[in-house]
Each structure stands twice: as C-alpha cells, then as structure tokens.
C-alpha cells in the first residue's frame, strides 16, 4: 500500500456533529426549527481560547478541509495544502474549525434532510440560505465549542465572502480576516454562468421540480453539465492549452477510422461532470449558486463598499491570482481599495499564476509563502 503523506498533514480526522435545537431566522424571512452542522476540527484549542481559526468552504466544498478519513483514504481534505502542521494555517499553533454549510449535502441540514413538518426530504422546499445565514450558524457552532472569538476567519471564493461577511457582521469576533480569490459581490457575467448551470439542472427531465428524491431519480445529466460549465470557468485558457491543447483522447480524423475523435478536453470535462454527480446534490448546487449571486457586501453601506466596511476591526489579507477570470484580480483590488478607503489595515497581493480560480486550492510556493508570512501576525 502506498504511504500516505501523513507527515505534513493533520493525519486521521473524523467529522463531528452538533445539533442546534433553537430556531434559526433566515434572511429570507423563513425559519428553520433547529438545524445540524457537521464539522471537523484540527489542532488544540488553547486554554484561553485565543487560537481558534474558522475556515469557510466554497461552492462545492465541505467540512473536510484537511487530513484523511482513513488509512486507505487517498485524497486529503480540500485545503490540505494550506491547513496542517507547518502550513500557512499551522495546526501546531491554531485550533481550526470547518463546518459544512447549511443547505449543503455533506451532513449538515440541507435539502436531503427530512423536514419535520412533512416527514419527507426538504428537496426544493429547503429555504434559500445566504452568506449571512451561514455566518449565523457558524457563530452558533463557535459558541457550542466554547469559542468567543476567532483569531482569524479565512476562506477562498465563496468562503472568502463568508470571511468578509463575518468581519462586518461581528467585528468584535474577528481579529484577522483572509479572503482569497473572492469578491464583494458577483459580476453580471458570474451570475450568468451560475444561471446557465442552474438551467442545465432544471432542464433535466429527472429534476422533477427539485423533488427527485421522492421520484427516486437524480438529475445526473443536468448536474454533470452544470459542473462542466462551472469547472471550465475555474480554469485559465493558457492552462487548458498547456494541459490539453488539441490532443485527441481517442479516435482520429481519419475517415477510415470508425471511432469518432474525442478531444482530451472533452473527455476531461465529462469526467469532472460525472465525478461531481456522485458526490453532490442538485438542490444544494442551486441553493449555493443563488447564495453566491445574492451576496453583496456593499448593501450594508447602501451600495457603498467603503461605508459597508466602516465597522470592521479586523486586519485583512486579500489575495487574487493573475489568471483567475471568474473572480478576477480587479474584484479583489476593489475590495482592498475599499478597505484602504475605510482606513482598515489591509495587505493585498495578486499572485502570478496560470491556474485560474482553482489556484487558491493548489500548492503554489509563492502563494503559500505569502500566506504563511502573513499568518505569523495572528496571535495563537
């Protein structure tokens, strides 16, 4: 059996569950009569509780941010490059918490959970959740874990939006805030991509208005297509050229050849789509993309981002990646500039990378060095 890279990882981890019986009043006006969160923690909470760090996940992420679930596990958590001993979020120093967001499909209350009122799965009736709702649930989890303050709240992409929301919603709770490859709100182009993904799901005959569980089916085609669109936008054109070019996976352009030509990139995208179907839920995808679309940090300042940030007391790190066109560097610059205008302490870097939006998840030495250097100021 191949050796796991446990040495530089938090090693074996297991998810835990917390039940919150009190009602949760959502931004939409709807009420959840209690909810459950599945979460993981890494490292030790120190006696005075000063070293707690919250990590927020992105669209398709979950609570499993680092380490392995079993000896035979071949894939670590989604941010294992960043979280672990000696890594930027150093588990020798910090107590790291990551929870699956409500509305998710990895164990926290979401569309696949049973609705107590009806006894059936929520399906498409699960209320629309928002970034602010997630922050509320994360705060309840903190209190459940005896945490009164986050040394840092950190996230990439949609996770970065949660970190930013924390910094203005509960300024006293957050002394450091890291938003990587994020934005204060989506652009029209971004919302458009999300809408295409949703329409792909809705147009699948197996969608059944979101109640596919009761119909014992799954809109697999629609989901795969949604993921293909999404995945494409996370990559840069240069990286795709490097990786796939015009190479064929099978067949040829020879008319004598019976086999139809299939480009490497087609095969890759189909694989990404099919993999996603097995691990993600269509209703969750719709909910999460809508939460992304609706997030607008500037709304707290009536459209003025600087005004929206006036109560924040955290020190900020904003990072973008040069080839990221889904959450373009200009959006991170907009965020950093608003923080500067609001006279907040902020550092900003645009990391040269050809990996597109996905760069925030990858092992890029320059990015990790900067991230580590900045985390040095976060008191543990």
């Amino acid at each position: 059996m191949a050796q796991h890279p446990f040495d530089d990882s938090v090693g074996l981890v297991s998810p835990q569950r917390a039940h919150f019986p009190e009602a949760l009043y959502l931004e939409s006006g709807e009420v959840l009569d209690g909810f459950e969160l599945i979460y993981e923690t890494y490292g030790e909470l120190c006696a005075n509780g000063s070293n707690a760090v919250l990590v927020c996940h992105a669209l398709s992420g979950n609570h499993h941010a680092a380490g392995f679930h079993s000896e035979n596990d071949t894939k670590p958590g989604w941010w294992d490059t960043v979280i672990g001993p000696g890594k930027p979020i150093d588990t020798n120093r910090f107590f790291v918490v990551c929870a699956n967001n409500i509305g998710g499909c990895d164990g926290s209350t979401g569309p696949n959970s049973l609705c107590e009122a009806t006894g059936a799965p929520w399906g498409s009736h699960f209320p629309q959740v928002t970034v602010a709702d997630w922050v509320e649930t994360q705060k309840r989890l903190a209190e459940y874990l005896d945490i009164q303050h986050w040394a840092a709240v950190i996230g990439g992409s949609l996770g970065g939006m949660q970190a930013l929301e924390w910094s203005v919603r509960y300024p006293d709770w957050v002394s450091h805030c890291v938003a990587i490859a994020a934005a204060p709100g989506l652009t029209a182009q971004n919302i458009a991509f999300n809408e295409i993904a949703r329409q792909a799901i809705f147009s699948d005959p197996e969608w059944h208005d979101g109640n596919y569980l009761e119909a014992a089916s799954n809109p697999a085609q629609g989901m795969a297509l949604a993921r293909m669109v999404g995945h494409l936008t996370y990559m840069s054109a240069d990286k795709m050229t490097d990786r796939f070019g015009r190479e064929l996976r099978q067949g040829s352009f020879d008319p004598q050849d019976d086999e139809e030509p299939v480009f490497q990139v087609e095969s890759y995208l189909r694989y990404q789509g099919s993999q996603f179907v097995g691990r993600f839920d269509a209703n969750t995808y719709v909910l999460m993309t809508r939460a992304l679309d609706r997030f607008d940090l500037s709304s707290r300042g009536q459209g003025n981002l600087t005004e929206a940030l006036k109560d924040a007391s955290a020190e900020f790190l904003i990072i973008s990646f040069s080839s990221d066109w889904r959450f373009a560097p200009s959006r991170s610059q907009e965020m950093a500039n608003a923080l500067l205008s609001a006279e907040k302490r902020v550092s900003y870097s645009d990391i040269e990378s050809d990996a597109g939006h996905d760069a925030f998840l990858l092992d890029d030495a320059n990015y990790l060095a900067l991230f580590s250097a900045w985390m040095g100021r976060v008191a543990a």
Partner: protein
Amino acid sequence: MMQRGDIDTIVSWVPEGGKVLDLGCGDGELLHRLQAEKRVKGLGVDIDLANITASVGKGLCVVQQDMEDGLQNFGNSRFDAVIIAYSLQVLERPHAVLERIVSIGNEAIVTFPNFGHWRSRLSLLFTGRMPKTKALPYSWFDTPNIHFCTVADFETLCKDLNIVVVERRMSSNMGPLAQLWPNLFAKSASYRITRR
C-alpha cells in the same frame, strides 16, 4: 541599505505617530523601523511579490501594485508623509509620480542617489563608460535605474512642477563639502517636498 545614508534622515523627518505611505517599500526595512521608532501607521506599496512577502513577514501592511498606475486608489487618503526612498530612478515617469505624491501626502520625502557626484563625473570623464559603483553596480543595459538625476536636476524639476522644497539633506563622506556643493559631493540626496 543602511549605508545609503538617507534612512536616518527619513526616520528623523517622519512625524511621530503619522500616517505614512512608503512607495517602493522593498523588504519593508524602513517601514518596520518607522513603526518601531516613530509608531507610524504605515502602509507599503511594492510591485514585487518577494518584497510583499518579506514586508508581510515583518508584520507590515503592504499592497502589491505599480506606483506608476496613478495611485488612484489613494484618492481618498491623506498621508502625513509619502516616501519614495531610492526608487525615483527606477520609475518610467518620475515627474508624474512626484506630482501625484504631493497631492496625496501633506508632505513627501524623496531620496535618490546623486548622479552628479564627483566620482560619477570622473568615472565617465576618464573611462568613458557609464559609472558603476558599489551601491549601483548595474551595467547600463540591464539596470533597473532608468532615470538617474543629479541634485540640480531634481530641484529644477520641482520648480517646474510647482513643488516646494521644505528641507534637503545631503549625505556624503565628504562632510561639509556636500552641504556647500551638494551637486558635486553628495552621494545621496534627501528632500522634504510639498505642493505649493
């Protein structure tokens, strides 16, 4: 860096507890010193990621950007001092940056190596080659220093841009000669300037 002679001057000029913008902050050494000795609220700007990382490692706030892109994002800010220490000569449009920094800072502090120094003059006169020194060891074709100037050049430019020199200090190992004939004897020049 410390042997340059301008650093102590800058530290002495920056107001205690002031809001300071250091353009081309490099590895953050100066800003770090200003925070320790003058308790300034400092912000660094640099274009190079290695410098950003080094500065961040010193606990500083730094923003990665090209100071020649207009510094528009500092439109609402007002700094007590904007510093350009030893990087005027690497700018493509130093005059545009000078105009900008006196508008976002109550005062700007600019330091640069004096190309009118007698060694540079003699070197060019006798060898007929572009001068290289210990502090500026580059060959003419691959130097980042594309806009050298002399003390006299700088003061003329200030006049043309309606910029007032509040104070100047010359550093040299020639002592009083540098104060008398700075254009000939100053190794580096430090200026406090402001908008007229």
